[in-house]
């Protein structure tokens, strides 16, 4: 793990990159990283995030700045700008069930080939997908999902990179921290090694590549 500034971290992300962003309706989203992505005008992004948040909040800022070309999400109903950009074919949107979304990312991070889920069988979601029978029951084969970058928000990070999350801001952050080539983290508090008890660490330090220095943001 390396401690870096916001500018340095975001400068590593090329235009056209695939990025996973933690958060659920903007809760648990690394806001400072997104502000810097907007400032550096990183464009043509393939965004993987549970939802489109709302204008001005969380990944909603990326839609405000029209930086997203592709979106994989479970729900965008509360962001009219994302809806407009989808209907105008400015953003290619893949909407998938939330449990499938979580599990596909987990599979990507855990080296699994995909997920066999009952969710979506017999619905529009099944179109174009392989259906596999196991013990006489049908499941959809949903493929693993990974990204070049994961932008993760933690509550506590220690100097090694161990992370702990608070309340409902945990959501997709831990699975995303396993499913990207480069993991960049903001934390509400950066604390000395040992402050987070071993049993309370959720994301082990070796998974984290960069932590944004708090003095910098």
């Amino acid at each position, binding site marked *: 793990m390396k401690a870096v500034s916001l500018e340095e971290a975001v400068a590593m992300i090329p235009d056209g990159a695939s990025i996973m962003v933690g958060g*659920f*309706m*903007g*809760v*648990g989203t690394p806001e400072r990283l997104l502000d810097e992505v907007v400032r550096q005008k990183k464009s043509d992004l393939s965004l993987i995030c*549970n*939802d489109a*948040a*709302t204008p001005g909040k969380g990944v909603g800022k990326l839609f405000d700045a029209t930086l997203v070309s592709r979106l994989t*999400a*479970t*729900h*965008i*109903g*509360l962001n009219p700008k994302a*809806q407009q950009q*989808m209907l105008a074919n400015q953003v290619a949107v893949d*909407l*998938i*069930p*939330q*449990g*499938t*979304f*979580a*599990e596909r*990312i*987990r599979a990507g991070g855990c080296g699994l080939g995909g997920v066999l*889920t*009952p*969710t*979506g*069988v*017999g*619905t*529009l*979601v099944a179109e174009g997908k392989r259906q596999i029978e196991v013990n006489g029951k049908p499941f959809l084969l949903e493929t693993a999902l990974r990204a070049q970058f994961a932008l993760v928000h933690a*509550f506590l990070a220690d100097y090694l990179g161990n992370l702990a*999350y*608070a*309340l*409902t*801001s*945990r*959501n*997709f*952050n*831990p*699975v995303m921290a396993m499913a990207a080539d480069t993991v960049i983290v903001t934390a509400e508090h950066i604390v000395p090694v040992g402050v987070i008890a071993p049993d309370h660490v*959720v994301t082990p330090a070796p998974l984290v590549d960069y932590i944004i220095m708090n003095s910098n943001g």
Partner: protein
Amino acid sequence: MDAQEIIARRVAQELRPGNLVNLGIGIPTLVANYVSPDLKVFFQSENGLIGTGPIPEQGMEHPLLTDAGGRPISALPGACTFDSAMSFGLIRGGHVDVTVLGGLQVDASGHLANWMIPGKMVPGMGGAMDLVSGAKRVIVAMQHAAKGKSKIVKQCNLPLTSARPVSLVVTDMAVIDFADGKATLLETAPGISVGEVMAVTEAELAVPDKVPEMRL
């Protein structure tokens, strides 16, 4: 009592002591208002919490403690948090005893459509498909009709939420059960006759000899 209150009060009667319950947004959210704390029901919020409590007093909200719509909530003593893979493991794995969801249409065989109106509303399915596929018991809480048109239809023409039928539909006019794959009228709302229910229901309903009124 308005339509929403009738529905929410009647659905609340379906919850059993110790149940793990997931309430969707809209009318389902109101159900929590009519559940006695003595029942010790656990409410799950699929963004990562079991043990949701009432909306906190002004000034006591925490930005990292919200419901699935992003609104501030509280956590009861004994609450616990988890990531989204775990949250949907609980849902898909059959650990949620009851989910209560809104609906656009339910058809005669219990199929639910509640996430999309082609060419009009495409917000995404969020957690609805997993909830209907995985919860032990799926209860739909919705108005019986919209703009005079029955929402209990012969066959859904909107995209289905799941191939799995729901267990029960509770409306402002009736309770309809879907055991054994057929729609049966179980109860009517106070002051509503069986004939009135049948008149605004497109799907065929089995009607037992005695159809009691809801006790609210």
